[in-house]
Every structure is written in structure tokens, then in C-alpha cells.
């Protein structure tokens, strides 16, 4: 069962543009994590959000957890080629030990 839907699946933009990636579900999560995966490597954690409505910033990246803890968004301001990669959201259920991953958003930022 796919708990988390990510959109868009692919995104190709030019350096300097802004973008938003969405992660949606009908399930309530106790936490939501965002990972970035570069080609040939494993995912690396960017952020964890745990409170409904929570907003966290990591340089040009802004993460938000929905009020109902069912969705999240990742906004990148002034994208750079170094932001290129696969962005994965992953939700943790209160009763579960496993992370439930979305299918990812492949981002390509061209100079």
C-alpha cells in the first residue's frame, strides 16, 4: 500500500527558479522526514518535522508539515545545480517502526 503520494514526479528547472514539492497522504503521521538521494548513493536526511503546522528552514530549503499531519511540502528558493537529486518524503506512523517512503521527486537544475 502506497501511503504517501509525491508530486511532481519529475521537475526540470533552470538555476535561480523556485520550486515546491508536495507529499500527500490520507494517513496521519507522527513524523515526516525529507531525504535527498544523489546518483549512486544512499538517501541522506534533510529534515524531520513532528508538529502539525511546523515549518523548518535549511538555507534555501523550507519544509512544512501540514496542520493535520497528513501532508508536507518542500520549497526551494533560487535553485542551484547542486540541488539536483531525488527528493524523498518518508512518514512514520505512531504504531510502526518502518518509514513509509513516497516515490520521490527527481529534480534537475540546469545552469
Amino acid at each position, binding site marked *: 500500500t502506497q501511503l504517501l503520494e509525491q508530486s511532481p514526479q519529475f521537475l526540470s528547472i533552470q538555476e535561480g527558479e523556485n520550486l515546491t514539492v508536495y507529499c500527500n497522504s490520507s494517513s496521519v503521521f507522527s513524523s515526516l522526514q525529507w531525504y535527498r538521494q544523489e546518483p549512486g*548513493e544512499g538517501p541522506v536526511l534533510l529534515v524531520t518535522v513532528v508538529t502539525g503546522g511546523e515549518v523548518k528552514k535549511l538555507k534555501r530549503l523550507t519544509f512544512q508539515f501540514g496542520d493535520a499531519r497528513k501532508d508536507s511540502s518542500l520549497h526551494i528558493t533560487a535553485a542551484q545545480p547542486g540541488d539536483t537529486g*531525488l527528493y524523498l518524503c518518508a512518514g512514520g*506512523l505512531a504504531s510502526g*517502526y518502518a518509514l*513509509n*517512503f513516497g*516515490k*520521490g521527486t527527481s529534480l534537475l537544475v540546469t545552469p
Partner: protein
Amino acid sequence: DTAVSQTPKYLVTQMGNDKSIKCEQNLGHDTMYWYKQDSKKFLKIMFSYNNKELIINETVPNRFSPKSPDKAHLNLHINSLELGDSAVYFCASSQDGLAGGQETQYFGPGTRLLVL
């Protein structure tokens, strides 16, 4: 200093063979995981061990058998390999393996398995 390491990085083998992938973490974590990432990049949990004890066993064919000799190692043995087993397999670890998914998971570099 590599935190989570996997061997081999690439594995090409024939259908029907048996193969193993090894994973080691030097972070002192109590919990380790195996994930499968398919060709569409979907990452799905397979198994999780906490202090050598199995705590997650998703719907995975019983041809896949994890083994944890100690809490720093979690190996994956696959019997009678099939074409559909071709994927990237990631090992990961986290501090305690608490429910709720709030812990950081540290991933290895992946093992690219190709079954011919």
C-alpha cells in the same frame, strides 16, 4: 570514516543462484534495516533488526533471509534469485529504532543487483 558500509557495491548473477549482501555500521546504533529500491526509485522496507532481534518483516518472499550476527552487522541472503529481484538494496541504521519514525536513518551506498 564510513558510517554504514555495504559489500558488494555491484552484483551481477544468473537466475537461480544464491547470493549474499553484507552490511556493517560503526555508529553504535541498535537498529538496522534493509530496503529495496526498484527501477522507479521506490524505496520499500524489507526487514529491520533491533539488537539482533527481528522487529519488521514486510511481505517479502521467503527466499530472502536476513541474518544479524551482532548489532553492528545485518546481512541479506537471497536464494534462487529471480529476474524481479534486480534492484538496488540499501542497508540503513538508526540509534534506537523507536516507533514513529522520528529518528534519523543512515543509509549505506547501496548494492546494485542485476539478475540475468
